[in-house]
């Protein structure tokens, strides 16, 4: 969700009123793309009745695996033939020892790319001003949503009746 000028943050004590508040926001015509949940524990999409989110991380992992394999081929295949050392009658390029190095380097590529994919997709590190309240890591559940200025008073009132502890158009804070 892109946090524009009309972004609001509603803070709830629990996940149940938060999921009801999501329904209320839908009734006001706010699109799914214009709202998100912030919480201290992960809640699955089915808990919140939200559309399934997808991620490209597995694709990055596979790409990393392939790159690792290519790197293994380069240092344990091509380079070994350039700098030949005869060992115990084995071929300069021997498949059994290649498999070992190739496995390790492919897995290393996979793991590094998985890690980097999280950093990349989450746009980390990101310390700038963002919609956030420290109470979230104490168990509160927040809904951040974009809302047209003409209805934001009605939306605030509606969410307050559902138990929103803190609802107003916030100043984004540095994290």
């Amino acid at each position: 969700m892109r946090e524009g000028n009309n972004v609001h943050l509603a803070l709830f004590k629990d996940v149940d009123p938060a999921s009801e508040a999501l329904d209320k926001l839908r009734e006001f015509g706010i699109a799914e793309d214009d709202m998100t949940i912030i919480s201290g524990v992960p809640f699955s999409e089915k808990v919140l009745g939200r559309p399934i989110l997808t991620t490209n991380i597995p694709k990055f992992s596979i790409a990393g695996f392939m790159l690792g394999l290519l790197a293994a081929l380069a240092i344990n295949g091509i380079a070994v033939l350039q700098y030949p050392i005869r060992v115990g009658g084995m071929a300069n390029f021997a498949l059994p020892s290649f498999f070992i190095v190739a496995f390790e380097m492919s897995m290393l590529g996979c793991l590094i790319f998985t890690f980097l994919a999280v950093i990349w997709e989450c746009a980390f590190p990101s310390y700038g001003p963002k919609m956030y309240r420290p109470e979230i890591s104490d168990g509160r559940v927040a809904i951040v949503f974009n809302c047209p200025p003409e209805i934001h008073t009605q939306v605030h009132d509606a969410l307050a009746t559902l138990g929103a502890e803190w609802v107003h158009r916030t100043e984004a804070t540095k994290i």
Partner: protein
Amino acid sequence: MTAKAIPLPQSQVEEEEDPRQHLLFDPRPREELNSMVLEAMHSTPISFWIAVIILTLLVIICLFGAWGYMAVVGMGTAGIRRPTFWGMFIANFVFWIGISHSGTFVSAILRVFKAEFRRPFTRAAELMTAFGLAAGAMYPLIHLGRVWVSYWIFPYPNNRWLWPNFHSPLVWDMVAITTYLLGSTMYLYLPLIPDLAMARDRSKGWRYSLYRIMSLGWRGTEEEWVRLRTAIRIFAFAIIPVMFSVHTIVSWDFAVTMAPGWHSTIFGPFFIAGAIYSGVAAVIMIMFLIRSTMLNMKYFMREEHFDALGKLVLVFSFTWTYFYFSEYMLGWYGGDAADKALWQAITHGPFAWLWYLMLICNILIPWLTLWNKKIRRTPWVMFIICLLINVGMYTERYLIVPSMIARNRFPFDWDSYLPRIELVISLGSLSLFMLLYLLASRLIPLIPVWEVQEGQFAHTLRKVGKTHVPSVSETE
């Protein structure tokens, strides 16, 4: 014919376990969980600083001082002599790499199989992996002697026309340990991010700055959680084969030689069983120390966890014994003169006291004690049992490395190995491990709070008839 109901004896009814004794059925508000973990982190009594100072001195003097002295004077200061060219350094290397398997086992394998009891101690185990690997990875460098040329093992174009020998298990070791060290460090860090953000939100001063940088701007949006959980799942699956490969490759350092006692096709799985055995025992020891020395940890690390891990230790004791007996059986039965002489020396000769110590610690003690639930649920007893298991596992590595190599195929070349500066350096590396752990315990949340709370959300007690039964819902 009618069935007759027989009431349970009163003592048996009283013994029935209350599910609320389990962490996941004894929820507390998140705010309180956070406070408990942070209070434990912030508490640094005088005993903590005394321990830090002593360990720092031991690391400086025994590890870096003794290592530096050996580098300047030469490898003659060590007890390594012909024919025992692999001594205590390599035994320590195998031991520490073995210990490091616990983190992956406890965290990744139990995560994949959704063993819920893992939740409070996964991070403690993952830290053991990272620091155990750091301690273990130093030993090839120490053993190398001329440590300043260690970069020759790295594959990069150079004008010496030297390229690492990729047929050598030592190069495989370097590649595998690098993969495992980097992989397990990233696997430690990823689930830590939300807890670092929690610490950031409740800290001031230098701690705030540190956690702010380390938490990378985490907020806990839906997108962030989905990405994090996907990555953790990939890591959990991918790091398991890496873990198996690392200790298999360590075992091949020995098994690919023609030395008696080493040349074995089952060394890979045998080493892995031993590594997980000693690693899980070490996790229990760490859990006991955390529980006894840090505030509020008795709430998170309970008897149930010692019980569950105690069962795993017993299973791996059986597995290790099975492999060890297979090794012994074929050496004894095979008729190879060198093998027979080796096993004679181990079972009746100069190494017999080590052999019996190993059998007592690794087989007799766990088999006599760990079947008993009361013992498994008594943390201090488990600590002693696991300490003895690790003494036994270290003895096993000592028997495999310097003892076996001292009885080679040439009787005129037999000798006994007597460690010298190795003992000091070993104390130094143990101190390094303890120091790193001690410092980490005050810098990062040792309990994955969000994972514990997630588990508490998923676990409820459901009333069935006249009793309450545990019920677990699928929240992922």
